[in-house]
């Protein structure tokens, strides 16, 4: 019981820490640029990082289940290239979009299939292989060329607004709500958390673990497809090296969002907070012309300290508890 409250209070603290961090970053940004808090500026700041954030949601689910998917960025590349090539060859844009989504979903499904059929293999090694493979196929298709020639209306996806709200933000909010509901309000979400906590006990409790894992990896593929749509739309062209290195950024956001890397614990709203923390931090440092490469130092340090703190905290807690017991 004591243990329980300690852990809960800690998780609570984590969310609040992210909120505090977010406020701090906003204050910093606002003081750096007088225009920062203007509505339009805010929206363009948000639009700058939301495209890759779609992948953070399923990645949170996958990491909570104790797996990992390193191939998501390659899936973005392959599905985007497939779409680009289709359009170049005269396929109507709407069909090309379907091709993009189908490709991405299939990539995720294949990951899930391999991971569940060959349980001896860790998800890390499987998705490292498919990471190389998927991007490799993109290179076969497009070599070092770029594909463009998308119709004008396609750019609305990345740049357009509904009313005054960017389309990408609306779609992101919609998916966030869906993933939040799935993880925190449905039986499937409960089962996902159970699998992450104790895979074996979940099997013995009649949970179809294979099905859930297959679903999670497929969802990751699907969301990579959504990312591919928005990213391609924003850039109006695509290359096989698109979204390179995004997978690690996505994983970093999930971890910073307080998802336990040993599985079984995590909250979608914390992860969303983490997306905004990193995104706005990057934007703010961009205002004062700090190169994005240097921002990575800060992200790296955040990542290390955000995992170091709980582990130190836990050790101190258990020491304290022993001392308390000694005095009983």
């Amino acid at each position, binding site marked *: *019981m*004591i*243990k*329980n409250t300690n*852990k809960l209070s800690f998780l609570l603290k984590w969310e609040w820490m992210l909120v505090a961090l977010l406020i701090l970053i906003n204050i910093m940004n606002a003081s750096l640029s007088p225009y920062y808090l203007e509505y339009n500026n805010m929206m363009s700041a948000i639009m700058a990082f939301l495209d890759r954030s779609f992948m953070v949601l399923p990645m949170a689910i996958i990491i909570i289940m104790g797996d990992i998917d390193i191939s998501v960025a390659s899936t973005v590349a392959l599905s985007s290239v497939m779409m680009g090539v289709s359009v170049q060859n005269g396929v109507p844009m709407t069909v090309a979009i379907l091709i993009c989504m189908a490709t991405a979903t299939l990539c995720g499904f294949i990951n899930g299939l391999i991971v569940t059929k060959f349980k001896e293999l860790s998800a890390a090694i499987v998705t490292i292989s498919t990471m190389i493979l998927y991007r490799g196929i993109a290179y076969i298709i497009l070599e070092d060329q770029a594909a463009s020639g998308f119709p004008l209306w396609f750019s609305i996806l990345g740049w357009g607004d509904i009313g005054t709200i960017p389309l990408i933000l609306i779609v992101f909010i919609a998916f966030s709500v869906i993933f939040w509901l799935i993880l925190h*309000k*449905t*039986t*499937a*979400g*409960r*089962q996902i958390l*159970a699998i992450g*906590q*104790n895979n*074996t*006990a*979940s*099997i*013995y*409790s*009649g*949970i*179809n673990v294979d099905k859930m894992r297959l679903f999670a990896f497929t969802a990751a593929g699907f969301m990579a497809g959504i990312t591919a749509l928005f990213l391609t739309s924003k850039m109006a062209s695509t290359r096989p090296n698109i979204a390179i290195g995004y997978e690690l950024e996505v994983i970093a956001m999930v971890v910073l969002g307080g998802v336990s890397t040993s599985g*079984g614990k995590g909250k979608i709203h914390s992860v969303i907070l983490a997306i905004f923390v990193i995104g706005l931090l990057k934007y703010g440092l961009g205002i004062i012309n700090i190169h994005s490469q240097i921002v990575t130092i800060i992200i790296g340090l955040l990542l290390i300290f955000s995992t170091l703190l709980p582990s130190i905290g836990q050790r101190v*807690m*258990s020491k304290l*508890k*022993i001392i308390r*017991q*000694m005095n009983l």
Partner: protein
Amino acid sequence: MSDIILELKNITKIFPGTKALDNVSFQLKRGEIHALMGENGAGKSTFIKVITGVHRPEQGEMFLGCSKVTLQGPKDAQKYGIAAIYQHVTCYPDLNVAENIFIGHEIRHKLGRLNWKEMYRISDELLQSLGINFNSRTQMGTLSVAQQQIVEIAKALSMKAKIIIMDEPTAALTKRESEELYRVTEQLRDNEGASIIFISHRFEDMYRLASRVTVFRDSQYIGNWELDKVSKDDLIKAMVGREVSSLYPKAKTDIGESVLELENLTRTGYFSGISFSVRKGEILGLTGLVGAGRTEVCESLFGIHKADSGKIIFAGNEVTIENPRTAMDLGIGYLPEDRQLQGLILDWGIDKNITLPNLDQFSNGVWLNDQKELEIAEDMFKKVLIKAQSVQATASSLSGGNQQKVVVAKLLTTDLKVIILDEPTKGVDVGAKYAIHKIMSDLASRGYAVLMVSSEMPEVLGMCDRIIVMKEGKISDTMDIADATQEKILEAAMVKSVKDRQ
């Protein structure tokens, strides 16, 4: 020279949440084999780890001979000539035998290069002296558990250990392998002059080997006796804290038609030709030695590992059980052997654990319904009499017995016809044991068919209506409770190993 080679006084060891050892004392005489007994969770394993320096106690003193020592770590214990052979073999399966023997105290040339030749030579010698004939270059992972244990003993010898601790070494061994181990243990005492602490749950081990016995219960020291001056019943009383006769509240039931039937069920390498049936209102015991294939049969019935051939007939229809879900939907429930690993999510509350197998039942479609969930969990919480602060207390904060009750409660939320219980009272305290037996008996009276796997002879004899004995993957005997005796069961469980020995 003092007669006492090792003495521990007033040792207390605390883990977050539990006192694993509470003011415990212990004496080991030079050249004796000393049995250490107690139920699971009594603190024996922790105690051993204190002696070997793995755990540092919060309070207490340790004396070797006459001098007081404080161990800073396992290295220190090694230096003082203390070695342990742990319950779960602690070998390195990827390394070879000689490396396993010499890890931590390797022999080296002057410049630090490993002296493989010497290590192989000494390893071979040690193995030979223990009467074993496998090469020290053999990969550890290819050996049987019994062979690995002998290697661990050779390791203790290679360190010139004078105090050797064996933590349940016979648990996973066959009768014949156990005999081999007894021989080696006595050899250690007689030829090497070692003093040995021998932990075991088996009375036969203790009577065969030890001269004195110390009993722990609930993290406390209860007493120590010369073995020829204490009766088995007194020892049991010391271990469990009260008389055991009332442990088996088995009510008479009307046994109905057969619910689950197995025909020639086979899973290659684990069991073959298994045929039996479980009937309504019956408690059927499935017993035999560890490793006889009992758990594997149950796992096939529950869809964990599918059988290769044979039929499962449920309520008159042949069924294929693909996974635990199909088993549960049919009405087969399974209480797994390892409750912490297979039964519970330790970080979660009792309520969420109880409802896990049947989330659909408590939810509106796909949505969780917290209110309804809590109600049903509380209902179960009261039904199986779990002792905890509240229904939301984490499973990890419960005692073994109460944890087991949670796992039982998980089963009862499902609409079942057959309940399979795998070692339901392993490592639970006496009070909980009684409670679980009571539940089991009630279930049978209410018309459930119960299949219980157990290694504990009194439990099988006290609770079952019929007993099936398995041996090396096959059914060796089936008997009615009226005809069953401890001797008959043992003979059926071990008859082949006995023959081999002759």
